[in-house]
């Protein structure tokens, strides 16, 4: 465990270092340390290991949301819109989710609405061929909203259970690209008023403080209902997610732990925190 066996100034310094190194960020780190100092006084905590458990309990409360499960439409189509900045793992996460739903016996359709990036459609097609799922696609360079329209209409007509929409990576600071997402959302709503049932923001666990800006910007633009935190199989801890969940009141639904189709797990706050402090 830790080398410290007493809660002293060195202990608080070490805890600060652990939190900051995990990308928890300065504000959240200060908040956590203040809370823990109070806890030590209130509950006469003497063992660092005891304090770590108290801290994980406290953070679990922040991270565990009642809507951590995916919102599925029990009698009809569930539409899942997947968004995020470039390279975070959207396309791969969609393949993983599609596989999950197929294994649950659901009929899944995927919309290739990244009509911009080189070989984005081909990348998704490799997955849909492997999983034997239907893909709705247009030519590269076509209007993503047109793909989404076709996909929603087709999914309703074919009575699919789940439609997952892949979108192009986009920096949240690019207003025209965020407007494009708003247009996609409108197209969904027009043809399926209760949709999208889930709008998932895919975040890369190796990102630092900018992930919080990403989350806030995407939420403001198209109302995020859940987060997929990817690449947790690396050495980055994704600590910024604590501030994100707290500030946006949005749950983490899945974590990505590798490049394979099974490398997706439902979010477990305690496991996440154990790994963060490991």
């Amino acid at each position: 465990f830790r080398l410290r066996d007493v809660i002293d100034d060195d202990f608080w310094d070490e805890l600060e270092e652990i939190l900051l190194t995990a990308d928890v960020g300065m504000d959240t780190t200060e908040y956590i340390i203040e809370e823990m100092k109070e806890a030590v006084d209130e509950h006469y905590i003497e063992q660092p290991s005891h304090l770590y458990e108290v801290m994980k309990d406290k953070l679990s409360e922040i991270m565990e949301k009642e809507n951590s499960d995916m919102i599925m439409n029990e009698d009809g189509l569930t539409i899942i819109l997947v968004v995020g900045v470039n390279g975070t793992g959207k396309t791969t996460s969609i393949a993983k989710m599609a596989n999950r739903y197929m294994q649950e016996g659901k009929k899944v359709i995927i919309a290739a609405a990244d009509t911009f990036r080189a070989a984005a459609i081909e990348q998704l097609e490799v997955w849909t061929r492997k999983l034997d799922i239907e893909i709705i696609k247009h030519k590269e360079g076509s209007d993503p909203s047109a793909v989404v329209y076709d996909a929603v209409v087709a999914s309703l007509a074919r009575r699919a259970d789940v439609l997952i929409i892949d979108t192009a990576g986009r920096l949240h600071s690019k207003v025209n690209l965020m407007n494009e997402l708003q247009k996609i959302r409108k197209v969904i709503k027009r043809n399926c008023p209760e949709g999208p049932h889930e709008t998932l923001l895919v975040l890369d666990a190796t990102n630092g403080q900018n992930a919080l800006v990403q989350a806030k910007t995407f939420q403001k633009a198209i109302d995020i209902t859940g987060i997929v935190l990817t690449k947790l199989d690396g050495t980055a801890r994704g600590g910024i997610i604590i501030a994100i969940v707290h500030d946006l009141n949005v749950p983490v639904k899945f974590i990505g732990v590798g490049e394979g189709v099974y490398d997706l797990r439902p979010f477990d706050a305690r496991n996440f925190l154990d790994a963060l402090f490991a």
Partner: protein
Amino acid sequence: SLQERLQGIFQKLKRRGKLSEEDVNLALREIRIALIAADVNIKVVKQFTKKVKEAAIGEEIWHSLTPAQQVIKIVKDELVDLMGSVNQKVNMAETPPTIVMMVGLHGSGKTTSTGKLAMHFRTQGHHPLMVATDIYRPAAIKQLEVLGKQIDIPVFQLGDKTAPVNICRGALKYAQDNLNDIILIDTAGRLHIDEELMDELKEMKAEIRPSEVLLVVDSMIGQDAVTMAKSFNESIGIDGIVLTKLDGDARGGAALSVRAVTGKPIKFVGVGEKLSALELFHPDRMASRILG
């Protein structure tokens, strides 16, 4: 902003007369907060603020009329000093072809940057060849081929069933026959902790002996930048860095961290998704960006 917070501190201090070591540390604390918020690694921040303190004390700025501005100037100068490099060019081979290898974490922008560099070298009158060695990611080879078509630059590939080291061997032969003087090798994204994939990279490097290994780093990366860069440098040795997605609003503290831990220069920055969106690295612009 950092300037405003430092001004606030110096206002208070001036009213109290002489500056103590503790007062100086207050200013340094603000600098530390600003750098950590910018994703500079906390250990790098520690070393850096120490340097700033030495430089500041040596300059006797603490009694000046505009101490906040002077401190900012010292911090900026130290940042530029640390990140700046005399040589921002790719190391060219003594006799062609020059071989450049692109490496880095998943999704950092290696494939796109390979295309950008190919376009950059062709504009300078070279005859580049791009090589597709990512045999893992679905449609990775196709992605590089599409980019090659966009800028009319050849892409060498042997499909996804041939080992990367053999693809490289084939590429060298092809370049010889087709008189390509620059070979850009795109590799698969990998974790620095994946021994097997890091060995693959070592094997490729030993085979083709590139004159330049470029670590492609996403400018949004957080504290992990140091662990990752150190590991790549220790495992395979890197010669330079490409920092991508700087058209975003990440402060990009990784620029400082990666430079500090590897000693290698940032040679290029990616500023967009188009293949023309590649610029040389400007340390003064980066310093201003990091300080926010």
